[in-house]
């Protein structure tokens, strides 16, 4: 029987951070919960065999599950009655961010996963490759394509001054 001591504690302490990553991957709070639960359930089976800190393994399960999961309908953002509180910013800055968020949501899933791991989790190219089970070269090409797509986005490039 595998030793799964520490699993409950890990879930209790690290779930909020993992949920944030799941949200950035899916762009939807409900799907983020679903994705995290699924990834944690997968990890439960392997828990006793994980060498070293479990977080990279769980993060990898999260990213690979997201990148290959077609069983659920991945919706665009849902309307919500309650807007999250944000610091006061000039209106155009908020619109720029919204445009970028929408453009990010239109990226293919693997590219979005690469973007989230590189620019939110601050993983290196090698760490991102390991987390997604792909080569470093693929990480580089996927990141380059994602950034090129974002730069090409008409709405975004107009807002951000010609695609800088």
């Amino acid at each position: 029987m595998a030793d799964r001591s520490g699993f409950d504690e890990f879930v209790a302490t690290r779930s909020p951070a993992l949920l944030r990553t799941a949200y950035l991957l899916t762009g939807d709070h409900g799907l983020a919960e679903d994705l995290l639960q699924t990834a944690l359930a997968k990890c439960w089976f392997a828990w006793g065999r994980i060498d070293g800190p479990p977080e990279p393994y769980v993060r990898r399960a999260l990213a690979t599950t997201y990148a290959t999961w077609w069983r659920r309908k991945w919706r665009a953002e849902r309307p919500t009655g309650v807007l999250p509180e944000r610091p006061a910013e000039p209106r155009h800055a908020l619109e720029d961010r919204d445009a970028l968020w929408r453009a990010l949501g239109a990226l293919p899933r693997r590219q979005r996963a690469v973007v989230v791991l590189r620019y939110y989790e601050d993983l290196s190219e090698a760490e991102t490759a390991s987390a997604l089970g792909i080569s470093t070269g693929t990480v580089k090409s996927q990141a380059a394509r994602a950034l090129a797509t974002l730069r090409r986005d008409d709405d975004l490039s107009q807002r951000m001054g010609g695609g800088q």
Partner: protein
Amino acid sequence: MIETSLRELLSERAATVVGEHPDRIREVRSRVAGIRRRRTAGAALVLVLLVAGGLTLARLPGKPATLPAGVPASPYFDDGGTSRTVTGYRGSSYFTFSGPATWSVAVRPFIERAVVVARCAERGDLTLADLTGPGSAPKLSCRVPVGDHFEGALLIDPSRLAGNSRDSTVMTVRLRPGSGGSWSVGLLEPLYPERITADQVRGDLLDGFTSPGGGRIQVTVPSDFRFPRPLSVTAVCVRDVRLQLTLDGRSAGVVVCDDASVEVYGQVTFAVSEPVAAGLRGGQRVTIDVRSIGRRTDQWAILQIG
């Protein structure tokens, strides 16, 4: 720089995630129980198939120089040892060796069945050790003559590979060849599932389970849509499904579920034809008629349009 904007945006959006699921542990354990039930049922099915296969083989004199049922037809390799494309399958993890070896196999999630294929210079069996489930060291019979070598195949449940490693996607299998010379192995994963269940596509826009011949969807073009960005239709299907799309009475193309179109296992993303997409604007309400014109089956679903 867009990288800086991305960092700021991601941090900002991550900060909107507040509140932790109050009973996450219980939810996770509930899912674990569900996965266990499915694995047990799968293992029971494999056991039944192995017993049935064993009984059949026991009645045959000697070892068969034919491929087992359910695997695609050979050849899988050229005489030079290069892997060949097999219709309906994606080949990966090719590995050449002689003598006992360890094979690293990358398996995609959700694949229900896969085929291990082998090429050998001399007839023999290849033992795949360290698998999980019943018959933990199955043998692949490499006896079908192809050109200057022999080939064989073994149908396998990928979860049996997954069970032997702490890594969820890259597994290790110990290979013990029963004959000398050079051996090559590879893994063939089907591009499409054999069956889709209504539960797997729950929440879709339209599917063959409720409308086998097709139906009508009313959708709003995403507000940020602007031609020439493509308007994509994402479908899940079994092989040879063809779905004809008509958008507000205009022919918008045909979603074809073939080897060339598959994106992820069983998933096809199709761009609405440009002349039709060019006339659309963000926020516009449109009617899309879907008609199944290929294989007569209910195994398809439109997941998303956007």
